[in-house]
């Protein structure tokens, strides 16, 4: 093996290294040499920090945090086929995972059945599970306790249909809906802003989101109907400060919409949940969580007049940064994930997903996913960081950074406000432009070695060692398509047509669509058929692609 360490570090080798840039965090804030009491003299502990579990929740949403409520160790249980995903979920739970996230494959994400010509080559892709009908939901959930296992469906534009299938399966199994636990990601705004998995224009999409929130509010009291997600914004390139500001602005938009739909704020707000990314800058991550809690609490109380303290609690699931993982020297990702995960814990997350080290190359192997899970268990049970609440509270640096992030958010809120709010800002291309610029800047910083990425632009090796990767199942797509065709042929066409007509009528009107969808999925109407019927009425969203 002809390995050579061709770099001793960016600074020594590269004469153009801009030393001033070495002390900026990922949001571009200049970091001082040392932080002193004067840096936080405007902070009033009583007003700005409070005690853990008390307004404004800067130090955490619970009084004793991890001493009594350890964060949920939530790992990705999806695999291409529902039955294999079911096995993987049970395996993760057996190994000590305390929650599960489920990704969907690209066709399901885009509202297409496995037999759709556009799905070719992508059935079961991206480590996601292919869900065509209630049959798939049944086998996905087989022998999994629906009232004790917290399942987070990473489902967005198709959330109403996935929720309908989940509810229908729970009803079949006799599980009372008010006992169902888990989360539907269901955040359509960030789809237009970053992840780009939308079908309809923003208005009808928002209506579906509000229908699901209203339905859960009435029937699924322990279920989170939405997880307002900054993760995808950050993955598309948004800086941490932008992730923070855009996520909160989206959150406020959902609150406004739900209030407009007639829901009292304290009825639905306690079940709103969030999803953040932790990237490489350790303290910046921590400050982001603390600032988020403070801004959310203050805005919910002062602007939306929430009276229930639970409405003011920013509850968050976190995932380590997939986009920070390198294909080069992939083993190094184990360390990146560990550091990021620790920052999420010190930031006070309620739930955490640690990425597997081989994700820049393929979907995780059993070995890599186990290691990711064990990483969290070591932090939770061995490191001692859970012994006291918010151990970094009062740090001059952390408090100053928290204040700075809160202040910077205001200018983003103003920009969005000046464009007419979140949806007009989407339509005017604001998010696409802002995020593209940040992504390009980051790439340039890496290429110009202003940001060091170990193994990529520093300490690199000319020859890479191959690691074992999970092989895709080449038969799966064909098998899934034939099973779906058999299912479609076994149904009564008149019944299917009746359900789809009913869905179209509901789309034209204003009644809550959920009961109609639940009935349809019970009659084996497929996800692709339902989305197709909705598309007939709502139309498709088209954006101008800019780069």
């Amino acid at each position, binding site marked *: 093996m002809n390995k050579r360490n061709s770099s001793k570090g960016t600074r020594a080798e590269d004469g153009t290294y801009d030393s001033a840039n070495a002390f900026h965090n990922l949001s571009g804030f200049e970091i001082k040499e040392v932080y002193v009491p004067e840096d936080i003299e405007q902070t009033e502990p009583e007003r700005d920090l409070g005690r853990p579990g008390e307004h404004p929740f800067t130090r955490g949403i619970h009084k004793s945090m991890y001493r009594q409520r350890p964060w949920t160790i939530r790992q990705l249980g999806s695999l291409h086929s529902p039955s294999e995903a079911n096995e993987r979920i049970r395996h993760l739970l057996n190994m000590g995972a305390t929650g599960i996230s489920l990704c969907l494959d*690209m*066709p399901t*994400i*885009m509202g*297409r059945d496995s037999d759709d010509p*556009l*799905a*070719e*080559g*992508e059935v079961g*892709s*991206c480590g996601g599970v292919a869900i065509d009908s209630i049959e798939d939901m049944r086998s996905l959930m087989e022998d999994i306790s629906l009232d004790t296992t917290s399942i987070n469906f990473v489902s967005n534009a198709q959330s109403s249909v996935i929720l309908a299938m989940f509810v229908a399966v729970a009803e079949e199994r006799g599980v009372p809906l008010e006992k169902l636990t888990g989360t539907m990601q269901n955040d359509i705004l960030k789809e237009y802003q970053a*992840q*780009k*998995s939308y079908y309809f224009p923003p208005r009808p999409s928002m209506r579906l989101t509000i229908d699901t929130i209203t339905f859960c509010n009435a029937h699924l009291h322990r279920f989170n109907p939405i997880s307002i997600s900054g993760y995808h914004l950050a*993955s*598309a*390139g948004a800086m941490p400060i932008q992730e923070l500001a855009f996520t909160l602005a989206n959150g406020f938009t959902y609150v406004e919409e739900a209030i407009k739909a007639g829901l009292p704020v304290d009825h639905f707000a306690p079940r709103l949940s969030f999803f953040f990314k932790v990237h490489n800058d350790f303290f910046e991550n921590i400050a982001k969580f603390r600032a988020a809690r403070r801004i959310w609490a203050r805005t919910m109380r002062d602007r939306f007049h929430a009276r229930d303290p639970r409405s003011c609690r920013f509850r968050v699931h976190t995932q380590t940064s997939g*986009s920070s993982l*390198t*294909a*080069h020297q992939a083993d190094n990702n184990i360390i990146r994930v560990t550091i990021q995960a620790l920052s999420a814990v010190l930031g006070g997350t309620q739930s955490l997903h640690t990425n597997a080290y081989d994700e*820049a*190359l*393929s979907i995780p192997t059993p070995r890599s996913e186990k290691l990711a899970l064990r990483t969290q268990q070591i932090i939770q049970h061995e490191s001692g960081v859970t012994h006291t609440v918010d151990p970094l509270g009062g740090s001059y640096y952390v408090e100053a950074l928290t204040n700075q992030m809160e202040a910077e958010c205001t200018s983003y809120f103003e920009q969005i406000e000046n464009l007419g709010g979140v949806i007009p800002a989407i339509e005017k291309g604001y998010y696409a432009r802002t995020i*593209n610029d940040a*992504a*390009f800047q980051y*790439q340039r910083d890496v*290429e110009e070695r202003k940001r060091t990425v170990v193994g*990529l632009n520093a300490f690199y090796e000319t020859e890479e060692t*191959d690691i074992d*990767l999970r092989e*895709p199942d080449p038969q799966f797509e064909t098998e899934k398509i034939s099973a779906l065709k058999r299912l479609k042929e076994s149904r009564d066409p008149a019944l299917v047509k009746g359900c789809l007509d009913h869905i179209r009528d509901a789309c034209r009107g204003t009644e809550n669509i959920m009961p109609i969808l639940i009935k349809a999925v019970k009659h084996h109407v497929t996800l692709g058929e339902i989305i197709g019927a909705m598309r007939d009425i709502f139309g498709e969203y088209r*954006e101008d*692609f*800019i*780069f």
Partner: protein
Amino acid sequence: MMKKRKKRILIAKPGLDGHDRGAKIVARALRNAGMEVIYAGLHQTPLQIVRAAIDEDVDAVGVSILSGAHNTVFPKIMALLEEADAADILVFGGGTIPRKDIEALKSLGVGDIFTTGTDTAEIIRYLNKTLER
């Protein structure tokens, strides 16, 4: 003396996969390097990509795939270009593509594949060199 024609490049995201960060970064880097770049946007079928390549009279098509559908999409694009008598258009690619698949794609006529972590300067050098010939 005739002004030298700028290189024209189509950047495309085939299939349903929406991971477009890399495609857009490459598009911008190529434009900054003086090339004319057309970004076809998301959710393009191989046929749409090939038609756009021909209509726009491009010198090369860059295809970005992160969904694992590379072994389905690239052969289709290559065959459609061949059918349309446009096999002179260079096809290159990028995304999450395992190393063991890259040789097979190259043997179909795909120029090169740039995976995660590639410096955009490397892609620019590659296009400048390959399209000069």
